[in-house]
Structure formats: C-alpha cells, structure tokens
C-alpha cells in the first residue's frame, strides 16, 4: 500500500478531529492512507457511529417476549403469531430535505424501505413524521409541498401504502424541517435474513443501480449544523429512482424465496464502506473488495469515491459461490445487474483493492464498533425554569370562546391532514382497513383475521417544556393511539431529532427525553427495537425543539373488533374515559390563541395510562364501543369535533363543572383520556369494565342531528356540522393555495 504524505488539512476537512486521527494511527499501528481516512471519517461520523448517543441508547429497554430482533440490525422485528413477524424502523432525512425537499424526502423513503426488505420482509406500509415552520412563510410552504410530493412520488411508485403519520408546524423548524420516514414489513420467520457476511469464501455481490458520485460524504453532512452556506452543498443530495427500487424489492424477495442468499444489506449512508464493514463485523469476518469491479455511472471515479458514494437503490448480498448464476438469473429477469465485487474472508479485515493494488486495509470492527464514544456534558437549560413558571392564573380567558375554539380547530397542527395524505396512495395492496386520519392506521394481514395498528407520534412542544415528561408522553400517546383501535401495543422504533449534542443544554434534553421514553416503554411493555438519532438539527445556531418521534406497532387479533374514531349512530352516548383534566401548559390553545409556549406540559401517570389502554383493548374485544378517539392537541373540544366530523353526525354535549374555567375544560391536553361512544344499553357494561381498570367514566351527551353543540358551564359552542367540517378540512389547503 502506498502511503502518501497527509497533512492535518485532509482529515479536518473530512470532519475528523486531531484526536480521532491520532487514535486511528494508534489502532492501525501506522499512518492511514487517504482512502482509509475517508472511510474512518464517515464511519466515525455521528450519523454512522452514534458516538454521542450510544451511552444513553443503551439505557433503553430493548427486550421482551415479542421481540425477535432488537437494535443493531437494519430494522427491528416483533412476533405477531402464526409464524409471522413485523419488521419496522424509522429514520431521518432532515438535512437532505432542507436542501432539496423533493429528493431529500424521496430518498429518505427509499432508504427506510431498503432497511426493511433487506431483512427479507415484504414492505406493507409507510408512515412519516414531519415538522416544518409556520405556513405563512413562503419558504416553509415550498419545503412542505416539496417534502410531501417527494414522499408521494417515491412511495406511490413502489406500491407501498403511506397510511399514517403526523405533521407539526412550529417556528423552531423553519430552517431545519424534520422528515422522519418509517417502513413496516411482513415476514415469515424462516425468511428473516440478517445483514451478516457469513461463510468464509462466499461471494459479495453488488446489485441494483450503478454507482455515481452522488452524496459523497452525505453522512458527514448529516453530522453538521445547517448554515446559510448549506444550500451550496446541494451536490451532496442524491436523486432517487423509485422504479429501480421497486425492481430491487421484487428481485430481493425472489432471491430470498429461492433461498440463494445468506445475507443482505442495503447501501445507505457511507455506501459500500458502511455496508461492507457492518456486514463483516456482525459476523467477525472480513470482506475483501475489488472496487474496479463496481459498475460505474460516471467515468474516472477513484477508489475513494467508489467506496463513499451514496448512490441510491443498491444492495450488497452474500452468496455461496455455486449459487451466483442463480442470483444472476433472477436479477436478469428483473432487468437488474448483479456483479461479484468481493468475497468473505476469515481475517476480520475490510480490504479494498483497485485491481491488484490495496488502497485500504482496516479491521472491520475498528470501523463499526470502535468509534470513539463521547461522554457528553449536560446541563439543565436555563429556559426551563422561566417557561415552567407560567401558571394558568396568569392568563385572561378570551371573551369569545367560540372563536377561540374555531381558531384552535383551524390551526394546522389540529386541522385535517387530508391535503397531505390524499397525495399518498394509502390504499394500494388493499389492506388498509383503517385509513389515515384516525388515531392509528390498521393494516389487515390477508389470510388471517389479524391486523397491525400503526402510528407515529410526538408532541415536541411538550418535550421542549419538559424533556422527561415529553419523552414519556410521546410513547404513552403512541400506545394510546394504537389501543384506541382495539390493538395491543407491541413495540416501538424511534427517530431522535435534536440539536448539537456538543452543547450541554441540548444534550440534557436528549438525556432526559430518553429517560422518559425508557420509563414509558418499560411500563407499557413496548420495548425499543431500533431507530435512528439525528443530531445537529440547528440553523445558524438555533436548535429545533427536541423531537423524539415514536413509531409504534400494535396487534389486533380480529379486525372485526376494530374501533375507529368517528361517531357511528344517532342516539349513542358520548363518554369521557378518564378525568376532565386541568393541564393547559404547552397546549395548542395557548400557542394559537395566546401566542404562548409556556407552562408545565401534562404529566403522564403510567399506571393510569396502562389501565386506560387495557380497558380499550378489552372493550374492543367485547364490542362495547362504537368509536374511540384519544384527547390530545386541541383538548376535549377538538377531539369531540373530530369525532363528529369523521362520523358526519352532530353532538349535543353538556358539561357542568363548577369552579373550573371553561377554556381549561375545553382545551387542556392532560393525558390518559379518551372520548368514546356506545349505545345506551352498553353503558353499564362500559362503566363496570372501566371500574375494573380504575378508570372513571363521565357521560357527556348524545350523538345526533346536524349541529355541533358543546356547552361548558355558561359557554355554549354551537356550530352547524357542515361549517365545522369545512373549517377543519380546508384549513391547510387554504394556507397552501397559490396566492
């Protein structure tokens, strides 16, 4: 190997510190080559190595009877019985989407889909969790419409329904939107494949798209803050080809069905470098690559560029030598190339050659497992005390509560997301039995009576105001949404979006949010099966709200028992399961009507939460309820409105609570509360079941008519249902209309 003289400029420009470089020299026992520095710089970047987050991630609960595969693989796996399992994972594509929203979001979808089918699973659903600035800003509208179109353009072409998710608007995301995509797949146990390079002497084959110069150092880019210069980094953004991905899905699943591959891994961040070193280190084997064999899209690419290219829609598969021809035949059928680019060795080294010349030779574990771990400093942010000091007594109740209600209902955070999800094909595969817009989507599993409930949740305003309670609440709310359909929550994936972890106040929010999440996951028996950390979500030094997005999977044994959110029958009773609540801190009402983000956000009592969810699951099994909808953003008032709009039925509700402010009753976002409806002859049954789980039941009113009538103490909100429906459904579309 030729060693060229390398000065500090080289590694610093690639994002390595001088200390990192010294460590590399020490670990290798020599100076690294230029190519090796490039390989280390991406593999030791925050994005690939999790160097700041690892110590905290290790504290999360990851085991449970239902877990087949926990963190560390391409995706997590949970058992759903009948020899079937669900494979799922969530990942961020924030920085690419800030620079080029359409392609950034599209390739985010492409990446997460590959993570799922690489495990042998058929992708059956997509979700996403999106955050933007406010829609009165033209640049935000450009980002929002571009991201939604990108997700649609890619996912729709693949024929994977995009069935659920969330969209949240707040100024903190103005320059740094969050685009978190989640993919869910279905697999039979025997078809599960891991991303491991097993079998010394086996061939390493590269399949799918040709390699170009796109996205070189994308992983490093993701590990920096955005600045005004970031737009000029555009070449870092890759372009997706969903048609190629669709062919790859079909070809890879056919390879697995034919039993001709022993391991499979997609090429994501850091391309060939990370996929090969991860595959090798998982099995304590080595991989010997000849990059001159890699099919190229551009001429004159150097070994360095080939190793770090992030060209999309490529997979690495491990194949026994006598089955190479079978692999090629299947790929040819799908019009794809398959090229042997290396072989599995027994020495644990990632060795990169260009024909006869070795350009890099590194023990794979140094790359995948030996990245420096940072014990980050943390400090309670100063803002917390001043924000939490706020009390409801400081607030004057608005004169016109009816207008306040309409304003909250029309706020883009509460309003219908139909403008978004009607651009996604959410029905393809004919399994979506609860469509977007409900608490959680439900996907039926054909050939069984089962269904899988899916949701993505996080109220970042709450996490901002109290990272621990907010983190706990994100998990609790996701589980509650799943339980509202009648499904039992199984497990979570997550996407942890935070600012620069080198800032102690940011790292405190990370640490605390994870502590909250971990407690909730343990209490609700929904272990973490994997996920992704995205740090450095800052624009010109200003961090986004701490945003730990939670992706939750639940299981319902019989889809006949499913519950949806909309009211069903005239004459049904409307019941509140849980308390009237009192916590107004961090509410949508405060933000929209009073332009205030303050107070202590609602706290979750995990015992109560668990009781409520068990009640919901049992009530569904016993077919007691005709609808159920979780009370969250916008409080009881908006929850009731959404139930009425979805069911196209009016309501007549009367709440008398002396000594309590009407705005608090209408808009507080206290947890562990659900509005349900049932036929009057079921009331006693519902009450006694709720009592078993320690849940109070309050009868609020009845279903029927064409008016939304909600009286609280001396305030009466009375709106024709058609108007209510229009306010809620058209709010976002109105913001997006070309002026």
């Amino acid at each position, binding site marked *: 190997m030729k060693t060229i003289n390398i000065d500090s400029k080289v590694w610093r420009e690639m994002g390595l510190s001088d200390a990192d470089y010294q460590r590399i020299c020490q670990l290798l026992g020599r100076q690294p080559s230029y190519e090796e520095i490039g390989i280390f710089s991406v593999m030791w970047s925050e994005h690939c190595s999790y160097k700041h987050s690892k110590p905290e991630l290790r504290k999360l609960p990851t085991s449970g009877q239902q877990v087949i595969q926990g963190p560390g693989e391409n995706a997590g796996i949970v058992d759903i019985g009948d020899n079937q399992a669900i494979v799922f994972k969530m990942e961020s594509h924030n920085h690419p989407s800030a620079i080029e929203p359409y392609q950034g979001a599209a390739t985010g979808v492409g990446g997460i889909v590959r993570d799922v089918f690489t495990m042998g699973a058929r992708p059956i659903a997509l979700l996403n969790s999106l955050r933007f600035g406010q829609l009165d800003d033209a640049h935000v509208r450009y980002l929002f419409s571009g991201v939604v*179109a990108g997700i*649609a*353009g890619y996912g*729709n*072409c*693949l*024929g994977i329904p995009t069935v659920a998710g969330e969209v949240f608007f707040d100024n903190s995301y103005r320059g740094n939107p969050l685009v978190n995509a989640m993919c869910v797949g279905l697999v039979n146990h025997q078809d599960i494949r891991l991303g491991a390079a097993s079998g010394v002497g086996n061939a390493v084959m590269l399949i799918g798209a040709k390699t170009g110069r796109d996205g070189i150092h994308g992983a490093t880019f993701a590990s920096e803050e955005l600045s005004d210069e970031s737009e000029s980094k555009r070449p870092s953004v890759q372009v997706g*080809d*969903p*048609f*190629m991905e*669709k*062919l790859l899905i079909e070809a890879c699943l056919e390879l697995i069905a034919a039993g001709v591959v022993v391991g499979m891994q997609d090429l994501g961040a850091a391309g060939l470098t990370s996929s090969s070193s991860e595959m090798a280190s998982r099995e304590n084997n080595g991989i010997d690559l000849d990059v001159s064999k890699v099919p190229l899209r551009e001429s004159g690419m150097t070994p360095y560029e080939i190793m770090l290219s992030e060209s999309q829609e490529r997979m690495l598969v491990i194949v026994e030598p006598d089955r190479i021809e079978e692999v090629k035949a299947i790929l040819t059928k*799908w*019009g794809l190339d398959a090229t042997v680019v290396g072989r599995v060795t027994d020495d644990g080294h990632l060795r990169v050659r260009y024909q006869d010349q070795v350009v890099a030779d590194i023990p794979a574990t140094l790359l995948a497992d030996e990245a420096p771990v940072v014990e980050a400093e943390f400090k309670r942010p100063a803002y917390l005390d001043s924000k939490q000091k706020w009390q409801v007594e400081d607030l004057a109740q608005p004169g016109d509560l009816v207008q306040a209600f309409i304003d909250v209902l029309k706020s883009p955070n509460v309003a219908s997301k139909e403008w978004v*999800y*009607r*651009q*996604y*094909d*959410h*029905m*393809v*595969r*004919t399994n*979506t*039995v609860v*469509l977007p817009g409900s608490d959680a989507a439900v996907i*039926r599993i*054909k050939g069984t009576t089962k269904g899988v409930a899916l949701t993505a949740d996080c109220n970042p305003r709450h996490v901002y105001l109290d990272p621990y309670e907010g983190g706990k609440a994100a998990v609790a709310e996701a589980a509650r949404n799943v339980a509202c359909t009648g499904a039992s929550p199984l497990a979570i994936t997550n996407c942890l979006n935070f600012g620069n972890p080198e800032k102690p106040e940011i790292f405190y929010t990370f640490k605390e949010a994870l502590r909250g999440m971990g407690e909730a996951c343990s209490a609700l028996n929904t272990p973490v099966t994997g996920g992704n950390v995205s740090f450095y979500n800052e624009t010109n030094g200003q961090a986004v709200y701490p945003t730990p997005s939670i992706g939750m999977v639940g299981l319902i044994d019989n*889809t006949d028992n499913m519950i949806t959110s909309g009211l069903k029958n005239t004459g049904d009773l409307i019941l509140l399961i849980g308390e009237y609540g009192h916590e107004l801190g961090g509410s949508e009402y405060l933000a929209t009507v009073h332009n205030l983000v303050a107070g202590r956000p609602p706290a979750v009592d995990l015992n109560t939460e668990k009781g409520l969810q068990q009640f919901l699951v049992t009530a569904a099994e016993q077919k007691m309820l005709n609808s159920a909808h979780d009370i969250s953003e916008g409080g009881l008032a908006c929850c009731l409105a959404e139930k009425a709009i979805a069911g196209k039925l009016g309501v007549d509700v009367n709440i008398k609570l002396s000594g309590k402010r009407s705005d608090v009753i209408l808009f507080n976002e206290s947890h562990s509360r659900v509005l349900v409806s049932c036929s009057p002859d079921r009331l006693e049954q519902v009450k006694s079941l709720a009592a078993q789980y320690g849940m109070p039941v309050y009868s609020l009113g009845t279903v029927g008519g064409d008016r939304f009538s909600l009286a609280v103490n001396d305030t009466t909100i009375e709106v024709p249902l058609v108007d209510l429906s229009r306010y809620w459904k058209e709010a976002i579309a109105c913001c997006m209309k070309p002026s």
Partner: protein
Amino acid sequence: MKAGIIVFPGSNCDSDAMHVCQQVMGWDTDYIWHAENQFARKYDLILIPGGFSYGDYLRSGAIARFANIMSAVADHAKGGGYVLGICNGFQILTEANLLPGALLRNNHLQFRCEQVWLKVENADSPFTCAAQEGQLIQVPIAHMDGNYFADKETLEQLQENNQILLRYVDETGLLTAAANPNGAIHNIAGICNEAGNVCGMMPHPERAAEHILGSADGRIIFESILQHWGER
C-alpha cells in the same frame, strides 16, 4: 371464468387484482409476465393492473405498450375477449391505441388518492351490465395522470356509441366541477372501445370490492364481467 393479469416491471396493483379475481370472485387467475410473447392458455378476461409500469418515465404507459405481451393483448381484444385496464392499465390501453384519447397530468398537478362517486352512464357494457343506468358507486382513485382528454370529434363518437361508462359526480349524482378530481373532460372516469369489449377506467374497483375496505361498490364491475360472460 379464466382471468390473466399482466405484470409489467413497476406494476403494483397486480396482487390486488389477483386477490379480487381469485379470492373475492373465485376465478381461475394467472399472472402473465410482460416479456412473454403469447398467453400460455386461453383467457376470458385480460386485466391490466395499476402501478407505474417502467416507472411511467417519459409518459404514463408509453413504454409498456411496446412490451412483448401487448401484441397478444391486442389479438385477444380483436378476437372479442374482455380487456380491463385499471389506472395505469387505462393509460397503457390508450397509448396502445386500444382505447381512444389520452390521460394527461391531473389539472391540480398533485397525486390524488381518495374515494370518489361515479355514475354508471351505460349499463349495457360487459363491464357495467350488473348495474343500473344512473347508479352511483363509490370507488377510490389513486393517480397523478388521470385527466382524460380526447378531441371534439372523438368525444362525439364516444357519446354517440355510448362508450362513456363512468363519470365523476358528487354524492347526489350531479356532474359538477367540484366532483371532478383531475380535470377529466366531461368528467369522464371510464370508457370502452367501440366493440364494447375493451374498457379502461381511472378508479380502482379492486380497492372497493370488500366491505372491510369501506366500500364494496366496485365489485359490480367484476360481477358485470361474470354476468356478461355467463350470458355469452
């Protein structure tokens, strides 16, 4: 009843069509790979499913029409066999000149997936004969290029020969601009050829063939084919 479902690279409603033909209707159904030159056996119905054949690069359906199998499809149509193109299948059939007109980009430039109301305009065709004329059915759409276009002369012919099978209407059956989800001329959602045996429609009846999916109205299309075939 024997049905064949053509699979192109990029087809993605092929398994949905299979589910309805095989599980819901109980038909003897095969997939037919695009690269074949002929059908392995004789089919009563050839179904061209939705999706993004060849990525829909260039124009939706433009590349698929040159696939090997398409000459067999044309022969099947010429011989009077049923051909049903749904969504991308409709686009392919127009590109292949088996149906008149073309499908342009939606007028609002967005992909649109939602339930729509359709009015059965002609209940005599093999694809609608189980319905009543004027019947309203609720069936979802999911497309980017569903804006049906035909020149004046073609439209007059379609009208004269009763080739317009389905139009987009509101839930009361009125033909309004607001009920038109893509800008299609005269709210046209589905048509057939002059002989009546080749049909293309943008809405997805296979997505509305079971109550658990929110509507079973789309089943009437498949029941019509069965009924017509039985009477033949």
